[in-house]
């Protein structure tokens, strides 16, 4: 990964990695990003001056109530939507459309039902210019890494929800993206399957060193997975706080530290800054969020 001196320099005065986690490069840079939507009651703010920096190799979870714009934010990072205002950079370059460097794992139903499992994984590899032999080898390798070596020729509808999301993970990771964007990927799964996948995603992240942005409405899931948890608020969609999660991995949903920190994040989620001073073993990062008293444009 090449260093981007200009963005790193720009970050020096940003209250970024003050938590001891030193990252030498910024993977994703959001600055004063706004996005409007045309609703029945007129123009609304989907995102209001959202700023966030995500370091290379960092695992950041975004939590927020429905309608807070967290999926919009992910769409913008993926390049499926353009912000109406503000700056969005991936590795120092402006994001101007979807691409292989930032892969998205969607909630569900994004696998191609007309292809079997391994053909789904091969799809992107073919588009990237790999020949059939290479594509098959890489696809097999990734199916093994997500513990699905035996279902290569199965049809998609024959898989359970958890297996589908593993295939989606393999499909995304096989292209060796710099960033993995995950949009509530485990929301529709049962608790047990979700536990398994939480462990697997943490392992994959530690093995591959990918930058991961993980959107969820589940606070505990966010604390289990994230290095940091960005808490968003709705109407307008804005960044409320960024909470560090200095807990050792691999974490589990029922770890007491996870539960306790989730409670803290939950308070932020419900009521912004009211909790200042009684934060559990984590540095609240209010200063990273735009102040809520900022003038509306």
């Amino acid at each position, binding site marked *: 990964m090449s260093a981007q001196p200009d963005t790193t320099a720009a970050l020096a005065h940003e209250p970024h990695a003050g938590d001891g986690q030193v990252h030498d490069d910024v993977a994703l840079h959001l600055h004063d990003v706004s996005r409007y939507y045309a609703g029945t009651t007129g123009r609304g703010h989907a995102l209001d001056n959202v700023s966030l920096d995500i370091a290379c190799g960092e695992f950041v979870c975004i939590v927020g109530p429905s309608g807070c714009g967290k999926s919009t934010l992910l769409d913008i990072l*993926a390049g*499926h939507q353009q912000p109406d205002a503000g700056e969005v950079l991936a590795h120092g370059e402006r994001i101007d*459309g*979807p*691409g*292989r460097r*930032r*892969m*998205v794992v*969607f909630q569900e*139903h*994004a*696998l*191609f*039902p*007309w*292809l079997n499992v391994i053909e789904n994984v091969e*799809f*992107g590899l073919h*588009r*990237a210019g790999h020949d059939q032999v290479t594509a098959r080898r890489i696809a097999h390798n990734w199916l093994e890494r997500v513990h699905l070596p035996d279902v290569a020729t199965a*049809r*998609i*509808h*024959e898989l*359970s929800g958890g297996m589908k999301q593993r295939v989606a993970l393999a*499909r995304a990771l096989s*292209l060796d993206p710099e960033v993995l964007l995950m949009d509530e990927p485990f929301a529709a799964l049962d608790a047990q399957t979700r536990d398994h996948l939480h462990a697997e995603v943490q392992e994959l992240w530690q093995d591959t060193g990918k930058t991961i942005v993980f959107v969820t409405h589940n606070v505990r899931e966010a604390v289990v997975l994230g290095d940091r948890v960005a808490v968003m608020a709705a109407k307008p969609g804005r960044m409320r706080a960024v909470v560090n999660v200095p807990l050792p991995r691999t974490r589990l949903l029922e770890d007491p530290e996870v539960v306790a920190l989730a409670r803290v994040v939950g308070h932020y989620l419900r009521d912004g800054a009211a909790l200042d001073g009684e934060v559990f073993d984590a540095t609240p990062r209010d200063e990273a969020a735009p102040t809520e008293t900022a003038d509306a444009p």
Partner: protein
Amino acid sequence: MTTASTASTARRPGETSGEERIVAPRTRSSRTVSVLVPPLVTAIVGLVGWQLLASRPSTSLTGPVTTLRTLLALTYNGQLASDLGRTLVLMGIGFSGSAIAGVLLGLVLGSNSLADRGLSPYLVGLQSLPSAVWIPLAVIIGGTNVTSVIAVTVLGAIPSIAIGTRDAVHSIPPLIIRAAQTLGARGRTMMTRVVVPAALPGIVDGLQHGWAFAFRSLIAAELILGTGIGAFLGVAKKEDRVDKVLSVVISVLIVGLVVDRLGFARIRRTLRRRRGMPVVGDLL
């Protein structure tokens, strides 16, 4: 419920999921009986009714036995087969033309909203236009020949194929398209590797409707222009041979049914099964 005793045997040994069938399936033979008996009863009632109608003293309607005998005779001497064969050749040409044009047009409408807004309202209107109204126009412009017949066939089927394809493209989940974009599909690759395969079940549905429209248009044109089976019908009408006319009705019905059931319905079922889509509405 009397199904309790069969419930344990109903589960296939290879079934992996823990899904229990709530209603135990009936045995194969009892299902065959329940599928076959109602249409058989209808057939018997129909044949008896037909015989009763035909045995009135004043009628020129021939009964089922006479008609069947004529049908068999016409089949054996090859007359019906050669006329029907000519009709089917025209059908093949006309349907292929409308399938290619209709699917291409539908793909354009499905992926270009400007073309869609400009053209689709008219296509929907044309869908309900009886294609027989094209016949006089085709005759005046093209003359009384097979080209006119084919033109009417194509015109009759294009709207429903195009609209069916367009609807199929529109009903592709946006997530599929976005996932494909992320994976690097663009332009023509997006069309051939994503849009067409994703919309294929819907496109086949559109082609199935298109086939029915094409067949109706073709028979109407042949009746008026006197080609293929239409010529045969013209002669039968002049000769006042109700049995011959009815033989044609039956053979056309059988051809239509065979193509629909053995052709389209099978492709449709295979496509939908492979994708785990529900297969509904198939009787045969």
